[in-house]
């Protein structure tokens, strides 16, 4: 009795009719899969824009003026990685050792971005290790850090205004 009640409706009428129903359902599933894949790819892709556009947008975002733009040495010191392999990059950070705010964007090929992404993860882990025990606000900001990979771009932001910096970045590449 239980077994009969639990049979899916598609099961009734085995034979050619059932096979046709199954085939229709599977074609519908495939169509849904293709639409889903297009949406996922679209969400992860990025317009190819001049990096200067991204630099201007982020520099103009609220809160960035209080951070210092870093040169290559400063980047390397902070991230323990070189941005040289990238086509374009920027980084802003705070001079105050208690302020974890920083924002980075880079454009490059997959290998360069993979290395930078690993550097970002290491940076976050190191910062968390420093602030976990006594910096509640800093810990929360670090745990809420934004790390995004879109097309040929990598973006990283930590700070009270990280959401606004992220929006500024995404607006450039959508």
């Amino acid at each position, binding site marked *: 009795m239980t077994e009969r009640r*639990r*049979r*899916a409706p*598609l*099961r009734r009428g*085995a*034979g050619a009719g*059932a*096979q046709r129903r*199954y*085939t229709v*359902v*599977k074609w519908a*599933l*495939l169509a*849904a*899969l293709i639409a*889903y*894949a297009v949406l*996922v*790819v679209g*969400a*992860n*892709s990025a317009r190819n824009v001049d990096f200067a556009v991204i630099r201007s947008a982020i520099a103009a975002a609220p809160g960035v003026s209080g951070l210092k733009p870093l040169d290559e040495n400063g980047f390397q010191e902070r991230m323990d990685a070189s941005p040289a392999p990238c086509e374009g990059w920027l980084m802003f950070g705070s001079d105050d050792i208690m302020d974890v705010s920083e924002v980075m964007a880079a454009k490059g090929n*997959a*290998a360069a*971005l993979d290395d930078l992404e690993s550097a970002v993860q290491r940076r976050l*882990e190191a910062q*968390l*290790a420093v602030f*976990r*025990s006594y910096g509640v606000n800093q810990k929360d900001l670090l745990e809420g850090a934004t790390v995004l*990979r*879109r*097309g040929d771009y990598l973006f990283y932001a930590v700070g009270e205004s990280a959401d606004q910096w992220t929006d500024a970045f995404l607006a450039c590449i959508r």
Partner: protein
Amino acid sequence: MVFSSLHFLYIFLPVVMLAHRLAPRRLRNGVLLAASLWFYAWGEPVYVGLMLFSVAWNYVTGLQLGAAARPSRKRAILAGAVAVNLAVLGFFKYYGFLVNTLNGALGLHLPDYNLPLPIGISFYTFQALSYIIDVYRGTTKPQHGLVDFATYITMFPQLVAGPIVKYADIEAQLRKRHASLAQVGQGLERVILGLSKKVLLANNLGLLADSMRAAPRLSVLSAWLGAAAYALQIYFDFSGYSDMAIGMGRMLGFSFAENFDYPYRARSVTGFWRRWHISLSGWFRDYVYIPLGGNRVGVGRHILNLLAVWLLTGLWHGASWNFVLWGLYYAVLLILEKYLTGRVLAKLPAAVARTLTLILVTVGWVIFSNTDFSDMGRYLGFLVGIGAGGFADGTFLYALRSNALLIAFAALCCGPGLRQWQLRLTGRLPALALVLFAALLAACTAYLVHGSYNPFLYFRF
């Protein structure tokens, strides 16, 4: 959500176990399904859709195979379904790898969408493939209940890191299961043991391995220490996760097969692969190796079969050429053992055979852990003194002194002795065993609260 996180251990798991226990039997699969979707959506909300597609696609395929009368029709249904499963896996896991390879080799500019890897896609896809192939072969009947089938595919204990569970092994338990309080206790013990392996051993060994890998130059002994630390890290990481999966399954009333059998005690590479990630090697044996003819063919064809299986095994582990090389490395070792060195190994004293196997496996892990070939070559060179900073150095002595207890205890845990002692303790002095497990859980919790380093190596699959 990872198993070794505070919100999983102290919020998700107790809530789900309680809800499952209190739910009427006919609703338990629904509770488990809802929990599993919540678990997956916590870290991967976008890719829940992909997993639901896999559920729907393979559910309908199973019914379609069950209803098909002609063998040719069944073959066509299976071929189409397998192709779609592999296409989904191929696109979401391997597209970037393929595109970057073609761009590099042929100078093309194909777009790389940098799709994040859907967690667990290799595991649930292989689980679904095993189901539809078994239905095709007639070794299992199609599951008519969509909720029951979805529960099988999405079950959170083994969704993201295995073991790969065959449908036939848990079909009866999907219909009807019960976990007595004793079984819940046993399951919880297993969860705590797995968590301890992951948090107390693997994470700390990982720190040692990473510190060695980060050094620009190593002495020979430092390189071997780093490689050994990684070998131990990946074992405790992965087997710890499998222990937790098996333990949680037990708490829910499921009985999953063991996935590890003390692999570092193997006397040969063949033996190692009968003890490491048993569910994966079993999957490839049943669904690739044996259908290709296995070893019941001529020598040439057998060698090709082994090469094919291990090429695929390597690829399964990651979308990168080092994994292909790792798979082929093992193919060569297994072929040599089968046709040349096997008899010699069998006559060696156990300690010698185990040491040789450990050395080969450790070298394999160096290949496995380095996606960059120049880093890999550099590290392999250090192991044999090429480009190394001497045979031993201060780094080695410092690392050994600082981690001696950890390494010694980890080596002890690679054998069955400690587990057998714990089982005897649980049987004879349950109160003391309870205190021991409570202490382990407290230690793991303290570590998770304090520490920030909590990677899980097998999440990339």
